[in-house]
């Protein structure tokens, strides 16, 4: 057998690729609202048939341990893993280790994963857009609750809030036992409370405590995602999907080529939609601006 043919066969069997670019695996929930807007620019950025592998999943798949294992084993062997939307981000950041991860439009991200050098991405909310919305409804002091890993987001909220005339009261919360005292203090001293999307604060007992206290003190919570707004937070923002997709494609292209990103974690580009809790707005007698940039959740 000619040597070249033999070498090609051996390389094919071993799965060795001569391409310098890392192969990209994209994970997206089949019905995710961001799917079309993010996949289109990614496919344009990676035109080769083998360069981009898209894996769609359904929530029922992750409840079945056999199918979940199959999905995770494929993801675990990725060279660069891109998670699109909240369900994919939650699954990937919760289960996959030792693989470079880029998330797109995730709202629920633990601070410890955000701090990891192998994790980068774009959060689902636009800090400036949300601060503009908050500034139209309240003034005075803005509370800020964040966890270790969210320092860059906290800095963006802090500077944006100060630029809009807010005084910022903040607490860095590292563990569950710190939540009660920090939340009490922040709610006593602020007119609205910004809470980052760390599961410590945005899910479970921590979130339950936060919502109960905020409702009793009538202090609105500015949350990371619609899940929280449906359960008692007041306002969040959803990203402008096309702009998010374009920005993500550029970042993923850079990462696949081995280039460093200017900022590892970013918030969503401007132009998103402000989403608010209609029941709370009615209860508190708030008049909210209409139009395409505001959407009510019941």
């Amino acid at each position, binding site marked *: 057998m000619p040597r070249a043919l033999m070498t090609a066969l051996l390389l094919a069997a*071993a*799965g060795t690729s001569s391409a310098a670019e890392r192969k990209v695996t994209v994970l997206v929930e089949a019905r995710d609202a961001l799917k079309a807007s993010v996949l289109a620019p990614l496919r344009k950025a990676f035109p080769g048939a083998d360069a981009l*592998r898209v894996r769609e999943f359904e*929530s029922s798949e*992750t*409840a*079945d*341990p*056999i199918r*979940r*294992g*199959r999905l*995770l*084993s*494929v993801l*675990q*062997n990725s060279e660069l893993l891109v998670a699109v939307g909240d369900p994919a981000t939650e699954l990937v950041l919760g289960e996959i280790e*030792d693989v470079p991860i880029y998330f797109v439009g995730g709202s629920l991200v633990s601070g410890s994963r955000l701090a990891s050098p192998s994790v980068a991405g774009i959060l689902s909310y636009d800090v400036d857009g949300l601060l503009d919305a908050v500034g139209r409804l309240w003034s005075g002091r803005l509370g800020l609750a964040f966890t270790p890993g969210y320092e860059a987001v906290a800095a963006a909220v802090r500077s944006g809030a100060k630029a809009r005339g807010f005084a910022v009261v903040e607490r860095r919360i590292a563990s569950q036992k710190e939540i009660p005292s920090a939340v009490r203090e922040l709610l006593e001293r602020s007119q609205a409370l910004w809470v980052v999307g760390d599961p410590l604060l945005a899910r479970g007992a921590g979130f339950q405590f936060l919502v109960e206290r905020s409702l009793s003190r009538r202090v609105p919570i500015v949350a990371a995602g619609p899940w929280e707004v449906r359960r008692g937070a007041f306002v969040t923002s959803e990203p402008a999907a096309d702009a998010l997709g374009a920005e993500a494609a550029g970042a993923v292209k850079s990462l696949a080529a081995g280039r460093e990103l200017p900022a590892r974690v970013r918030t969503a580009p401007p132009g998103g939609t402000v989403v608010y809790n209609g029941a709370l707005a009615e209860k508190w007698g708030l008049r909210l601006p209409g139009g395409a940039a505001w959407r009510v959740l019941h």
Partner: protein
Amino acid sequence: MHPRRLRLRTAALLVAALLKAAAGEAKIVFTGYGNFQMTAHQSTRIHGDAPALAAFKLTETSAKARGFALDSVGLFATTNLKENLDFLVDFTYRKIGSTTGETRIQYAFLEHTPRPDWRYRIGKITLPFGYYNQKRFYSFQRVELSAPIFQSAILGLPISDVGATLQKRFESKAGRVEADVYAVNGYGATPADSKKFRSATLPGAISLASNLVPSNNNENIALGGRLGLARIAGRDLEAGGSYYGGAWEGGGTSKLFQMANGHVHAGVGGLDFLAEYLHLDVLADPGFAAAVGDSHWTTDGYFMTASYPLWQVRGMPLIPFVSSEGYVTRGVHGGGGQERLQGYRAGLCLLPLENIRVKLEYGYLKYVLPLVGLGDLKLDSHSALLAMTLAF
């Protein structure tokens, strides 16, 4: 290929896959489940004709039972060796008390998907036979608590064996066509007697489950396949037919064991409905001739199950379900009695979390085993069961 050579080759491939995984070239993902079961109440009545009872050294009797068991714990290991090449194993521990009564490797196979529409598996595989065997066998895959009794207790579920299977998929106007063919070691004779396929003895020996083992006295290979149409009209509708055929003992086709199955599954608008028809045909089996009066015997029967998420309890879906089954085994040429099994079950399944299922079920079972010249042995059973399945 000779079965011994097939087994050796399969073993070599599996060992190679494991070595590659163990060498750190592939990462192994472990998932699993646990199924806890409580028999809140069970009453069983054994009765029948006196000679038949005497043959089993039984008297007419009623018994009640209650108990708790860790029914099964399973660990699934999955590794992606390279793109489109996976290795999967299921280690299941059953009959768990202070020690584990039974450890099973329910499947362990190498799966290669060279093209999106072609896939083959080599190793110990779950046979593509019907719908339940591959898609509903595990307790976390279904809302019902108990599996169909005939299939689980007599035929033996899951039907998994050493061999290879090949699948071709393609889209048609009606839906997605899935064609599977397989070659496996196959069912052999009953372990207690190499001349019998099924024995009319109680308890346990009427089951065929232990006839399906990786190494048995049967040198023949069994062949089969399934042709199914899935996603009919773009919906979660599926229908298909399956076949299994192979001699159960040396002697070629003169000792043939054949199974045929037709299945329909619909998951539309929350309603989940599954029905399977099963036909067994066994030649030259002196074992069950003692029951049905003929060494050529057949079984015909069905099971069906339906569920619908009717209620929500504090945001948790509560799903009522019903299921029934009926099977008759008879001699082809007549002359003997008929083995009859009928079962009816109804219950509720609560889903507190996506990966937890709490189930409550009431079931009634009626079973008749004839004995040539001695009459019938009968069993009636009522049971109330509770279970919790946790997937992780």
